[in-house]
Each structure stands twice: as C-alpha cells, then as structure tokens.
C-alpha cells in the first residue's frame, strides 16, 4: 500500500514563504482524502509542493511508490489546441512511455478510462468544443490514464452537474480501492467530503490547521474558523453525517485565522 506524509514541509514562491512547517499524519492509500480550506488558503500551493513543482525545506515522505508515480491535476484552465479528446488522453499516457507507435494495451488503457468516465462518445471531439464540465472529465482521464499511485486533484468536481459529481467521486473512490493509491482531492462541498472522504486535511493561511479522520476534523468550530459560517453537523434520516449552514459569521475576514 502507498502512504504519504508531510514532515515540516516548507513551500515558497521565490522568497515568499507560504507554508513554513506543514506536517500531516501518515495518509494511507486505498481511500479518498479531502483537502479543505477557504479561497486562497493555500490548497493549490500545498499540492504543488507535494508534486515537486515548488521548492522548500522539509520532507514529502512517500512509501510504496516512486515520485514519478505522482500525478497532480491543476484547476481547470482552457484547452484550445487542435487535438481531439482521444489524442489528448493518449498524450498524457505517452509522456512516460514515449515512442511514436501505439501499442494495443495503450489503446486499451485509453478506451478504458474514457468509457470508465462515460466520455467515450466524446473521443473525436476537439478540445476547444468542450463545455467546462466535459473538459473537467477529460482532465481527470488524462490524470488517471497512467494509473498513478499518488493522485492530487484540485477541485475535480467543480464544473460538473450533480450526476457527474457523484459519478466522478465514485470513480475515484473505486480507483483508490482498486489500486491502493493515495488520492487527495481539494473540495468545497463539505457534504461531499463527509460522504466520500475518509480523511480530511484542513488548511488556512498557509498552515495545516487540522488533519485526521473527516468527522473528527470537520467539527462546527473548525468549519466556523475555516469558512466563517455557523454550521451544524447532523445525522440524516439514513444515518449519514451532513452539514447544515445557518448563517455567515459577521466581520469574518476570509479566515478566522487571520
């Protein structure tokens, strides 16, 4: 099984230090982990540091996987190349294998991920023609096609409708269970987090303010500090935890940690 742990990790852009000493408990693979925090709390920065795109002191300890087995999906940006959906997924696969020829198993892998995410019908469409949600699904396919052992995704459900949000989270959960991969998702919908993610890491102001089992982490006090809202965590009629928001806290300046 794959595990990931941050030990006193520093992350900085040039000389500007965002994270000074970020540490987490050991994050085990096989299930989903959430990364939560308000806008500009440092979620993407933490991802980029783990992915090795930012420099800094400290250690990102990975066991059971090579650093090359890590894939980070950034937030959705436009894609305007004259490539089809199929080509763009092949592209992601080929960065590791190289060679101009396409093997049968490579074509299989691409077909499988496209049909798994139910976008097989989009194969021949050009990237520029896709809607935001479709583009998001293509990005997810590009990320998973190499079957990485560590997956970091920035808002994978952002542009999706309710059906596809559910589908994608389910797909990712099954992926983690099948491969034992560490899958960390930055998510905004805390109800999604409570339903899908076993562990949660909460960040604010360039600090990891809590990390642990989801329900222990996402208590009302923590939600208030993170997002500036009064919320209750209750149990629904089927016994699942869910969050109900009552009101916004007045004079909350982006983060209770400021």
């Amino acid at each position: 099984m794959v595990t990931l742990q941050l030990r006193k990790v520093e992350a900085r852009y040039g000389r500007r230090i965002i994270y000074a000493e970020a540490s987490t408990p050991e994050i085990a693979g096989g299930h989903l982990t959430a990364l939560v925090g308000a806008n500009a709390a440092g979620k993407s920065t933490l991802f980029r540091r783990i992915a090795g795109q930012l420099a800094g002191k400290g250690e990102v300890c990975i066991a059971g996987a090579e650093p090359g087995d890590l894939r980070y999906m950034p937030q959705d940006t436009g894609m305007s190349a004259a490539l089809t959906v199929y080509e763009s997924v092949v592209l992601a696969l080929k960065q590791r294998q190289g060679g101009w020829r396409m093997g049968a198993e490579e074509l299989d892998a691409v077909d499988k991920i496209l049909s798994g995410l139910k976008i097989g019908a989009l194969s021949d469409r050009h990237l520029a023609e896709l809607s935001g949600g479709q583009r998001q699904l293509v990005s997810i396919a590009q990320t998973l096609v190499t079957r990485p052992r560590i997956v970091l995704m920035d808002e994978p459900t952002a542009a999706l409708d309710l059906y596809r949000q559910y589908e994608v989270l389910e797909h990712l959960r099954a992926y983690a269970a099948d491969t034992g991969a560490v899958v960390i998702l930055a998510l905004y919908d805390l109800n999604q987090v409570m339903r899908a993610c076993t562990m949660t890491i909460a960040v604010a102001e360039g600090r990891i303010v809590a990390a642990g089992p989801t329900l222990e982490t996402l208590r009302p006090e923590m939600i208030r500090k993170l997002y500036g809202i009064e919320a209750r965590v209750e149990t629904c009629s089927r016994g699942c935890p869910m969050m109900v928001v009552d009101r916004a806290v007045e004079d909350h300046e982006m983060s209770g940690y400021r």
Partner: protein
Amino acid sequence: MRMVVWEIRMPIALMAVTVGACLSLAGAQMQTILANPLASPFTLGISAAASFGAALAMVLGVALVPAALALMVPINAFAMAMLASLLIFGLSTMRGVTVETIVLLGIALVFTVNALLALLQYFASEQALAAVVFWTMGSLTKETWTKVAVTALILVVVTPIFARRAWALTAIRPGEARAVAMGVPVRRLRLETLILVSALAAVPVSFVGTIGFIGIVGPHIARLLLGEDQRFSLPGSILSGALSLSATSVLSKANLPGAVLPIGIIAALVGVPVFAILIFTNGRRSW
C-alpha cells in the same frame, strides 16, 4: 544545358525545398513553445537581426567574423541572427520570465534592429542601398550546392531531436500547467527548442534573406490539415513549408519572362489567399 540545370537551376530548386522546410519547422515549434499563433523566427527578431548583419557587410564592409570576403554577407547575417536569439534565450532563462515576456522582448528587439538597419540605409551609398533592399526582400537566385548542403544538414540534425520530443511538444499546446502536470519539463524543453529553432531559422535566412511568410503560414497549413499531434504536424510542417516555397519559387520565375521577382514578395501575395481559404473552410479550431 547540363551546366545550367545542375549548377544553376537545381541548387535553386533544392534550396527552395530546404529553406521552406527549415523556416516552416522553425515557425511550428516557435508557435508551440510560445503558445502564440503569430510566433515565428521573425517575431523574435531573428530575421531582422540577420538583415542588419547583412547590411553591415554590404554598407560598411564590416565583417563580424573575419572570413573569406565572398561569404561576408551570409556569415554576418548568421552571426547577428544567433546573437539575437542568444539574447532572447539569455533573457528567457531569467526568473519570472513568461511566454508573453519572451514575445514582447522579441518585438522590442525587432524594432531596435529595424531602427539600426534604417540608420545604416540612411547613410548607405545608392548601390549598397539597392543591395540591402534586395536582400531584405528575400531571393533565391544565386544558390550553390554548398548552401543547399548546409541548409539540409541543419534540417537533418534538428528534425530527429524534435521527433524524439514529439509527445512533450504536443503536450505543451493544451496549456503549460497541464503539460507540467503530465510530467513534461516545460521550461527545459522551451529553452532547448529555442536554441534549435534559432539555428534552424538563422541558417536559411542568412543565405536567402527575409522570406517571412513561410515561417508563419507553413505550420498553420499543417495544423489545419493534420491537427496538432506532432507525429503528424511535425512532418506536415516540413512538407508544407517545402512545398509552399517550391511552388512560390516556380511562380516567381514564371510571371515575367526573363525576370525573377523576389520570392519573399510572391510568397506573401500568393500564400495569403490560400491561407485565408484554409482558415474559413476548415473546421479545426486551434487557437
């Protein structure tokens, strides 16, 4: 007769093929790494610098590299073109320099070098002025087997390097962040490509002068017809450039009996309508 075909006509014909291929390939990769459909060796001032180098030789008789006088013009042009690309290259290795900055620096360089060129022309003798103007129009008239061989050599050396990086270069197009996410070393790839493209553009430009159009349009034709998978667009750009410049070369001779019009002029006049037709009739949207 044999003499005319082999020593005069054949080098010109082959020169058109190799120069077209080089410039088109250079333009294609420049557009790829700079994420800009208007990028070409000319956007970054490589061609303008070459013209300035050539003018230095023709107007002032200054040789930048002490060499045989016969080769003073192309060697000067090449030296200035490489100097310009090294300058751009050096600036783009600095921290915080983005693709947009590189393009802006290139444009600044174009204006600077053009001003220097104008200054030279202002003080030039009438004869030298005519030579400079003719050179900057681009022409395929006095070609030799040596020039053909040098141009072909650079193409043969550079193409396999790009071919090996085909997947990485394709990956840059949908966006830098995505390419980085796929594990492409974008920054390094961009710098390597910039060097290769500079050589690829500087060599033909220093032999034949400014033939600007092929570098922009050749790659677009390939992209419109074949898409952006570099396994297809890379050979496609080479072919479309070679074919376009060959056809243009033929046209520039066929128009006026006994006279050869500068090929740079014909390339733009004939190429633009073809290009426009392709843009409006083709469904692929790339930018």
